[in-house]
């Protein structure tokens, strides 16, 4: 089963670019996922100042440019992994240096979070939903 692991760094826009030390640690972690054969894809995301939010209400579409200063829990990147259970995904998340590192070393800000979400497979849907996904 596939899981997305979302990295929520809980840091401000100014601190968004990681240090070379943090990059080195993260690279090692990514290698570990690769060597275990579980990593399918990963990406890191620019800060919200380079993004925008699009929403619709009453037929009107609103576009708001970043940064979203009021917003918490901004996603900084993701991994997609293919593992045998949710427990295994959790075990991998625990090994992420952002979780293992600062949180275990007297980090006093808001701790980084890795959120784990299971990816839908066709088989997770009822039969009628599955047929709705078929092309006409």
């Amino acid at each position, binding site marked *: 089963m596939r899981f997305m692991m979302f990295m929520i760094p809980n840091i401000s826009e100014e601190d968004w670019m990681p240090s070379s030390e943090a990059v080195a640690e993260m690279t090692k972690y990514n290698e570990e996922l*690769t*060597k275990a054969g579980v990593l399918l894809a990963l990406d890191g995301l620019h800060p919200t100042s380079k993004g925008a939010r699009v929403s619709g209400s009453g037929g009107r579409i609103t576009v708001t440019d970043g940064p979203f200063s009021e917003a918490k829990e901004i996603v900084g990147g993701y991994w*997609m992994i*293919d593992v045998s259970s949710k427990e*295994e995904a*959790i075990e991998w998340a625990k090994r992420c240096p952002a979780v293992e590192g600062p949180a275990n070393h007297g980090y006093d800000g808001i701790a980084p979070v890795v959120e784990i979400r299971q990816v839908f497979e066709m088989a997770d849907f009822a*039969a009628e939903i599955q047929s709705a996904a078929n092309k006409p």
Partner: protein
Amino acid sequence: MSESPESTAKVVEAIWRIESAKVIGALTRHVGDVGLAEDLAHDALVAALEQWSRSGVPVKPGAWLVTVAKRRFIDGLRRTAVFSSKQDAIYRQAESCQQSTATDFEVVEEQIEDDVLRLVFMACHPVISRDARVALTLKLVAGLTVSEIARAFLVGETTVSQRIVRAKRTLAEARVSFELPPPEQLHERLESVLEVIYLVFNEGYAASSGSEWTRPEFCREALRLGRMLAELVPQEPEVHGLVALMEIQASRLRARVSASGDPVLLGDQDRDRWDQILIRRGLAALERSARLCDALGAYGLQAAIAACHARARTLAETDWSRISALYDALAEISPSPVVDLNRAVALSMAFGPEAGLEALEALSSEPALEGYHHLSSVRGDLLERLGRFDEARSEFERAASLANNERERKLLLDRVSALAGPSPMPDPSSTAGANPGIER
């Protein structure tokens, strides 16, 4: 932090999936015997179940398991009162490995990777039977339980256990050492490893028996093993070739079963459902393989063929003449009647059904294909495309009687009944490629 025993059991199982190869590899190096290493690891897991539910999971669970297992080993040796000189040596070795603390499990990463690779080669050693190699690899390297392996191959747990016990005994009797194969044997030994991984994959991709057409969990296990191996021996082109082949084939898994569980063959698949992540990974692995060699090996060529399909957005866009040429190359380095059969299909798609039938003629007397349902189903398909419906029907009937997978048999019988109607004029757009042979 204490956990319920059930949740600890799940956590231990998950950790074992991640750590089994490293733990058993490290222990085998220390105790010299894979059977003993596995017993020690098992004892450590039992201890983990008990302790972790009380005190929580340690930060380095793999290192914890190795340390506990080593301690058990030394305790066991201490209990035996008299040491022969050989045991004495083992004892000294054990003492020295006790001194090296748990952290060395993390520090000497290269050593660990070597141990994992040694373990892979040992589990796939040619002295043991092919079935046993598969079982041993899934148990020791992939960390599956006996009952999971038994479910995979639709055999009893006792059968799997016995297979594993016998295999370990054979390894011990043949004095197979925990070493990497010498350079002159590397390719032959690697071939056996790749074969085991691809066997596991195929058991998931086209279940050889049973009521399900595919069992994706085995494709996932095989892919995981293949990707792991690709990082352990990154210089070997065929490893990347196999990974590429499996990634691309697996990309079609969700398109090759209908909502009702019936097989959907390549030509009929909704290509929008092909998994682009896996296709991208497969194409990258294929490039990696090609960069490492002058000419692709057998897995690389099969991956290149699969890549032709993956790149074609519609069936009509398929580059069949390139596929025929790749089959020519494959038939040269790895001749087999099955390859010839596939080549015939490619020829029929590139140059018309007559060309395919002509190529099949040469195969009809091939003893290895006697009783092979794909030969009949391919011939049936070509005859149907030529409008020779009566002959086509009897070929599909024959194929259905030979197929072991229930879903596949049903598909073939459906084709028989489609041809049995009063005006058996099939829609050419759907049947022309309805069965581009066994490249499925």
